[in-house]
């Protein structure tokens, strides 16, 4: 059974309550109001930025094996890597997927403010380019956004690199808030009749949740950046070590988004995987309301990590700061259990996206096991606290590797909708092996170095164990190279699929290849400019299931 019918020529005049936005301003990549186009641009931008960031990370790891790298050079690379990876990859990738899919999943023809989303996209791209180019403008004033104390206030106003770096972060943050606000209003106000918030697909729900998090926290980060810019450029000394409470200020402004930001990417990852698993399980999601609640709880708990490193600074007097970080594992673990409860092996539709979903869970489990082993190592003096290379491994497995695999699960799942045909499975499988292996090796090198007592964030390893640690750094570098290879494989796969899909006749582009349950599968692939000709009416969480039941009862004339 299929869900598509032939569009009569006169149906172009079907409900036009939502005004067309393509008539006044000519369409171009900068002024387009097509959310699907903007979403694709977001995804491409994210992949370009992560390639830059990963190459920088590999260079940093390789530099650990030599003794000639200066601290300043390492700090510059670290700032570039940490900020570009945390702000310009996964947030953009999920924003891109959200921009493409949210209007389709809620049955809307457009975003609430289509051109504002284009503005936010290009603001982010320009900000990202400025961020990378700041590296070329000489020596920076500081070390990154992790600690204020390294700011050499004697050199205030001397660094264009830091000015550019901070300004680019402001531009990126404002653009992210703008895009998040747009998606939030879209999900809130443009839903089709009958689609209550609890009937929204899990991915749209998770995007809405993460947008709430971004809208509330990113402006705080922007306020902190404004202070940082004025402070480091002019030298008033708000963040100077001599200023009382400067650490409080730093942590409560620059960390309120800077820290949770890297955890918030888990939220849309959970939503996307929930939709992926529910679709391929061919069964209604077990306790879907509970899953949505847990996704929202995860978003709220992300803010607990603001105190994750506070024990070091003694700035936030909470006796067990790590508990707040560990709490996130509870809703995520429960969601994984509900996924497993949904799947029945005999009914499962095998799909590559499920392998990526399994990789997501595997990496989380590996990190969780490490989290259990680490305290015993710490007791034996092997682990160097939160300042250990172990933490770097944990961060890269949980906050970079796992959500990246989830994002690619989503891309492989929705590729038939985005491109008109699915991505190549062989290349996709190779990419999966490269990414999973790469992330695991990347983290393993850091975990092992940490267990051996290696510190984090140093330009060179020194001391009697330096040569052993250097071997671990090589292991991480190999992991990084595998990740780059996986990303390049995806770029090639996407380009080939895109070119191949354009040559396919429309009849060979299935609108609903999986017998999906959510509204994006109810239109053609790729969807037409206005997404839907007729506006669906939703009566449950499974509108397409309702439609199929209705078709079985009384076939509609014209349906194929």
């Amino acid at each position, binding site marked *: 059974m299929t869900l598509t*019918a032939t569009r009569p020529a006169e149906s172009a005049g079907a409900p036009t309550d939502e005004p067309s936005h393509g008539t006044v301003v000519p369409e171009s990549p900068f002024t387009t109001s097509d959310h699907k186009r903007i979403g694709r641009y977001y995804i491409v931008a994210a992949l370009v930025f992560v390639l830059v960031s990963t190459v920088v990370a590999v260079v940093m790891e390789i530099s650990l094996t030599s003794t000639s790298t200066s601290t300043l050079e390492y700090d510059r690379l670290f700032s570039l890597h940490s900020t570009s990876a945390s702000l310009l990859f996964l947030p953009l990738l999920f924003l891109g997927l959200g921009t493409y899919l949210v209007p389709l999943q809620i049955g809307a023809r457009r975003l609430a403010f289509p051109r504002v989303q284009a503005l936010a996209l290009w603001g982010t791209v320009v900000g990202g380019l400025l961020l990378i180019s700041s590296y070329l403008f000489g020596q920076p004033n500081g070390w990154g956004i992790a600690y204020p104390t390294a700011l050499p206030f004697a050199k205030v106003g001397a660094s264009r690199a830091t000015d550019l770096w901070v300004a680019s972060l402001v531009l990126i943050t404002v653009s992210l808030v703008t895009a998040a606000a747009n998606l939030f*209003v879209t999900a809130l106000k443009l839903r089709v009749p009958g689609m209550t918030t609890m009937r929204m697909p899990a991915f749209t729900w998770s995007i809405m949740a993460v947008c709430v998090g971004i809208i509330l926290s990113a402006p705080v980060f922007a306020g902190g950046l404004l202070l940082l810019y004025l402070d480091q450029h002019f030298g008033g000394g*708000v963040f100077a070590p001599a200023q009382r409470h400067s650490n409080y*200020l730093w942590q409560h*402004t620059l960390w309120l988004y800077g820290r949770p930001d890297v955890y918030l990417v888990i939220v849309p990852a959970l939503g996307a995987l929930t939709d992926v698993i529910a679709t391929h399980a061919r069964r209604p999601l077990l306790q879907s309301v509970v899953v949505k609640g847990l996704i929202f709880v995860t978003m709220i708990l992300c803010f607990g990590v603001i105190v994750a490193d506070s024990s070091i600074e003694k700035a936030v007097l909470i006796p067990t700061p790590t508990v707040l970080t560990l709490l996130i594992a509870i809703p995520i673990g429960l969601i994984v259990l509900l996924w497993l409860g949904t799947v029945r092996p005999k009914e499962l539709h095998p799909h590559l996206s499920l392998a990526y979903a399994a990789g997501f869970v595997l990496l989380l489990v590996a990190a969780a096991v490490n989290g259990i082993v680490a305290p015993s190592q710490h007791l034996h003096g092997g682990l160097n606290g939160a300042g250990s290379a172990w933490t770097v491994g944990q961060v890269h497995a949980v906050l970079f590797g796992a959500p990246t695999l989830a994002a690619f699960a989503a891309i492989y799942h929705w590729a038939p909708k985005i491109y008109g045909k699915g991505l190549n499975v062989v290349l996709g499988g190779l990419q999966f092996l490269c990414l999973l292996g790469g992330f695991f090796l990347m983290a393993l090198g850091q975990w092992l170095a940490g267990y051996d007592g290696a510190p984090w964030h140093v330009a060179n390893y020194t001391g009697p164990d330096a040569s052993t640690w250097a071997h671990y750094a090589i292991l991480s570098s190999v992991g990084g190279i595998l990740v780059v290879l996986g990303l390049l494989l995806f770029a090639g796969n996407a380009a080939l699929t895109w070119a191949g899909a354009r040559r396919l006749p429309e009849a060979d582009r299935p609108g609903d290849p999986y017998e999906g349950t959510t509204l994006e599968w109810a239109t053609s692939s790729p969807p*037409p400019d206005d997404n839907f000709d007729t506006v669906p009416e939703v009566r449950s969480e499974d509108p397409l299931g309702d439609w199929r039941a209705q078709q079985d009862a009384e076939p509609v004339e014209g*349906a194929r």
Partner: protein
Amino acid sequence: MATPQLALTSGERRADPTITVYGVIVLAIAILMGMGTLAGAYLAMRAGTTPWPPKGVVRQQYYDNPLLVTALIGAVAGWWGLYGVRRGDRRQAIVGLALTLFMEGAFINLMTYMMQVSHLSPRQDAYSVVWYALVVLVIATFATGIAVAGVVLARVVGGQVTAAEPALAWCAAWYGSFVALVWLIMYYLIHVVQ
């Protein structure tokens, strides 16, 4: 050319004029979070600095009061514009919104003048850095207020905002009050909290 289409039953959909209102509310929330950050920074610095205000800082109370009056007139004018729209009185609506726009522009003008005569420099001390950050945010907020009022004014002139569809005028009125509130927060921090 035949194109596949959705074959679900068609639900009734009406254009929702409140989308822009929601967008402006979210914008206001984001600005408020940023303002709260800087207000928190100001209060934290106040708690850690003795004497307060720091030596060499002279508060410009004379300019702050005209600024408050200007912001409040702009806010009231926004409601006047809405009143005109709801009554179907286009002339009053245009005058009200134009006055909002003018007063918000005047506010920015006076604010930048106050920055010049305050003799505070972000090179000077931490107090001045936070003060400058607050001023920059307030100016940016009023600039967005001008943009909102300008768009609504253009729509009123173009006949797209009418008594039947006044949602955008509500936007201008509420946002005009919101920008005045942002200034009130800064005013309260600097003059009322001692």
